[in-house]
């Protein structure tokens, strides 16, 4: 397990933190792999999905 910088609250604007939890292809890394707790994973998922909608992080690497 990597040493991850966990914030108090996941913010969709803080993309440096969110990028730790997505793969190169843009998928969200499962909590069983990253080792964060279930409540944290739920918050993270919401933040990632908002950030994707605002074109801050990609949905997939196939989009240009």
């Amino acid at each position, binding site marked *: 397990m990597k040493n991850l910088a966990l914030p108090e609250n996941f913010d969709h604007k803080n993309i440096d933190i969110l990028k730790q939890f997505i793969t190169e292809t843009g998928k969200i890394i499962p909590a069983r792999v990253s080792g964060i707790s279930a409540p944290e994973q739920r918050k993270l998922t919401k933040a990632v999905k908002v950030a994707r909608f605002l*074109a*801050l*992080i990609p949905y997939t690497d196939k989009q240009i």
Partner: protein
Amino acid sequence: MNHYELTLILNPDLASKFDPYKEHFESVLSQLGFNIHYCENVGIRELAYTIGINKKGHYLIYQLDGDPSNIKELETKIKYDNSVIRHLVLKIDTVTKSDSFLTQDTKEAKKRAEERAHEAKLKAQVQQQQKPAKSETQENERSSEEKKDEGSSGEENSHNKDETTSEKNESATEEQA
């Protein structure tokens, strides 16, 4: 009254029209009874994927206070606004009155891009200067190498001479003794 965070992605081609557009938009907000706590002007960022034909977008984030009943009206107004390429209204617990990570990130990205452009310019200049002068410099290098060879061989000779002279001196001293 609820707290809201309104994010707008504007068409990056607005440029000079941006300031009047922002004023106009803020007047619309106040007409609908929204209280603006903070406006974060992130600036033009590269989008993670293209939206329509846009590869870049001007991000604008508002921290608002307002009535939930007016949100729908606001959204319809934004929807028919051609200069907004994407928008999102989020209900939030507390209003933050400072710039987020995005503004900092955008500034850094801008700096990096400028530095890269500057370096590319310098490289191009150096290459242009080198091209006509290349043949001359090569010749100079060759001649200097030859000179070096000559110089080194000359030194060796002188060393040998010194040694022979010292030997002579030694023999002379022996004879004296």
